[in-house]
C-alpha cells in the first residue's frame, strides 16, 4: 500500500460537470492524485454558510492544501488560515493574502486580449459582443482586456456587454446573445459556465440562416464544442496551474504572495479553432502570435482589473 505524500482538497461553488471553470479545477485535483500521489477530496458548497465549515472540516481532519476555487472563499479562507496555521489554502481569483492563504490569479486577460484582436480582424459589422454570467472581477477583467484587444486592432469597433446574472441559465444566455446579434454584433465572446453552449447555439442559428458570425470560447478549449462557429478559445489550463502550484508548495515556496498563472507558463493561451483558422487572414494569425510572444516577454501591458489587496504592478 502506497503511503500518500499529502492530502489535497477542492472546494467549488458549482457542479464540476460544467466542462469549464469547475471541471478544470476537478481535473486539477485528479492530476494531483495521479502525478503527485496526493489523497484528494472534493466538496461542492452551495452557500457562504458552508465555507467556514468546509475549511474547518478539511483542516481539522488533516488535509494539507485546500484549493478554494473562487473569490467568494477568500474571507473564510483567511479565517481558517488563522485557526489552522499548518494548512495552506489557495483561493482561485482571490483578493486576500496571508502567510498560508494565497490567491491563485489566472491572467485570462492575456488570452482574452488575443481573442479581442482576433475578433477585430474577423468582424465585418464592426460590432462585437460580450456575454457574461455574473459580473465578478475576473469576468470583468476578461471583458476589459477583450475590448482592449479589439481596439488595439481597430479603435472604431463597437463593443457590447451584457450580464445574465447566472452562469448556467441557458435561456438567458441565448437571449442575451440574440440581442447582441440583433444589434449587429458578429463576433461574440462569453464568460459563462454551462450556459456558454447557448451562446454557440444562438450564433449557429444565424450562421445556419446564412449570416457570417463567430463565437469565441472561454475558460477551456471549447473549439470542439461548436467547430462550425467557434473562432478560437481563450484558455485557462487550470489543471496545469494546480499542479504547478502544488509543486511550488511541495518546495516550500507558497505563502505570503499571490501566485500568477499566465501565458508565461502556458497556463493561459488563445487557440484558434483548427476547423476555421483558414478563414483568418494570415496577417491576423501572425499579429496575434507576435503579440502573444510580447505578452509573454512582458513587453505589452494588458489592462486588467486589479483585485488582490496590495497588488503591485509586477507579476
Amino acid at each position: 500500500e502506497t503511503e500518500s505524500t499529502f492530502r489535497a482538497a477542492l472546494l467549488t461553488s458549482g457542479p464540476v460537470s460544467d466542462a469549464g471553470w469547475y471541471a478544470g479545477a476537478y481535473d486539477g485535483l485528479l492530476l494531483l492524485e495521479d502525478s503527485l500521489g496526493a489523497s484528494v477530496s472534493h466538496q461542492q458548497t452551495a452557500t457562504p454558510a458552508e465555507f467556514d465549515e468546509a475549511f474547518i472540516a478539511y483542516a481539522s481532519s488533516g488535509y494539507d492544501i485546500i484549493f478554494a476555487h473562487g473569490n467568494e472563499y477568500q474571507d473564510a479562507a483567511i479565517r481558517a488560515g488563522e485557526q489552522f496555521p499548518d494548512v495552506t489554502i489557495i483561493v482561485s481569483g482571490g483578493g486576500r493574502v496571508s502567510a498560508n492563504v494565497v490567491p491563485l490569479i489566472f491572467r485570462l486577460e492575456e488570452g482574452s486580449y488575443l481573442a479581442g484582436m482576433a475578433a477585430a480582424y474577423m468582424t465585418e459589422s464592426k460590432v462585437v459582443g460580450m456575454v457574461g454570467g455574473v459580473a465578478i472581477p475576473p469576468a470583468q477583467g476578461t471583458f476589459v482586456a477583450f475590448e482592449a484587444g479589439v481596439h488595439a486592432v481597430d479603435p472604431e469597433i463597437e463593443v457590447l456587454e451584457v450580464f445574465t446574472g447566472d452562469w448556467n441559465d441557458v435561456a438567458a444566455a441565448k437571449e442575451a446573445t440574440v440581442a447582441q446579434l440583433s444589434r449587429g454584433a458578429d463576433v461574440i465572446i462569453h464568460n459563462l459556465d454551462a450556459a456558454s453552449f447557448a451562446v454557440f447555439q444562438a450564433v449557429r442559428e444565424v450562421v445556419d440562416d446564412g449570416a457570417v458570425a463567430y463565437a469565441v470560447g472561454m475558460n477551456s478549449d471549447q473549439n470542439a464544442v461548436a467547430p462550425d462557429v467557434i473562432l478560437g478559445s481563450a484558455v485557462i489550463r487550470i489543471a496545469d496551474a494546480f499542479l504547478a502550484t502544488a509543486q511550488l508548495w511541495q518546495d516550500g515556496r507558497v505563502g505570503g504572495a499571490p501566485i500568477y498563472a499566465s501565458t508565461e507558463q502556458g497556463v493561459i493561451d488563445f487557440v484558434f479553432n483548427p476547423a476555421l483558422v483558414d478563414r483568418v487572414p494570415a496577417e491576423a494569425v501572425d499579429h496575434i502570435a507576435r503579440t502573444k510572444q510580447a505578452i509573454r516577454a512582458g513587453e505589452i501591458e494588458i489592462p486588467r482589473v486589479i483585485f488582490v489587496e496590495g497588488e503591485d504592478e509586477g507579476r
Partner: protein
Amino acid sequence: MSQVELTLFLESAVRLGIPLALAAMGETITERSGVINIGLEGSIIAGALGGALGALAFEGAGLGVMSGAMAGMLVGLVFAAFAIGLGADQIITGTAVTIGGLGMTGAIYQARFGATGTELSLPTLAPVAIPVLSEIPLVGSALFAQAPTAYFAYLMAPIAWYLLFKTAWGLELRATGEAPAAAEAAGVRVRLVRLVATLFGGAMAGIAGAHLALAHAGTFAENMSAGKGFIAIAVVVLGRWNPILVLFAALFFGAASALQFFLQALAFALAYQIFLAIPNMQTLAALAGWVGKSRAPAALALPWEPHR
C-alpha cells in the same frame, strides 16, 4: 426600438415564454385537480436530460422531446406516489422531488459523460417557419418561425381549455380540485383523476425541459432549469388557471424577460441586477392592474383520502 429590433424582441419574448407556457399549462391541469406540484422543477430538469439523452440515442430531436416527456412524467409519478398514493403533504413531497430531480439528473449525466461533463453536441430542434403566417409583419416571425415545441404549446392551449371546460372529464377534474368529497360522492375517482392530471403536468414540464435542452441550448447542463418551475407556478396564477390565459401569461413573462436583455444590449446605464428583476416587478404590476381577485381551486394542496 427600430422595426427590426422590435421583431427580434418579439421573437425573443416568444422563445423565452414557450418553456414557461409548456410547464405552466401542464401545471394548470394538475392544479385544477387540486394538486400543487412544486416538484415541477424536477420534471423540467429531468425532461432536459431525458431530451438530451433521447436525442443522442435516437439521433433525432423529435424523439428527444418524447423522451423528455417520459422523463418528466416519471418524476411526476414519484411525486404522485407520495402525494396522491400515500396522501403525504404535497409541498414537502414537491420539495423533495425538486431536490431529487436536480440531483438525479446530475448523477446520471455524470455517470454517462464523466465527472467533469462533456461538450455535448445534440441534434437540435431547429425553428420551422410556417409559410404565409410567418410573413405577417412584426409578429409573424415571432410567433410562426419557432421550434416545433412552440407550435405544440399553441395547440395545447385550446385543447387543454376544451378538455377542461367542455368535456365530462374536465368537469370531473375541476370538481376534484374544488371539492373532492363532493366529487367522490358523485362517483368520481378522485385519486385516479389526480394521478392522471399530475402525470400530464409532469409530461408537459418534461417537454419544457426538452425544449430548453434541444431548442435553446443544444446541450444539457446541471441545474439548467434555473428556477423555471417556480416561475411556471406563478404564471399559472397570472393566467388564472385557464390554459389559454396561461399561454398569454407565459408570453407576457417571456416579453418582460426579453426586455431586460434588449435594455442591457442598448447599454442603458443601470445595474444589470435591476434589469433582471424587471420581469418579476412587471408581473407584480400587471397583477395589480388586471388580475384582481382570481381564486385558486378550493382544494388545492389538500391531501385527499377517501372517507372509508
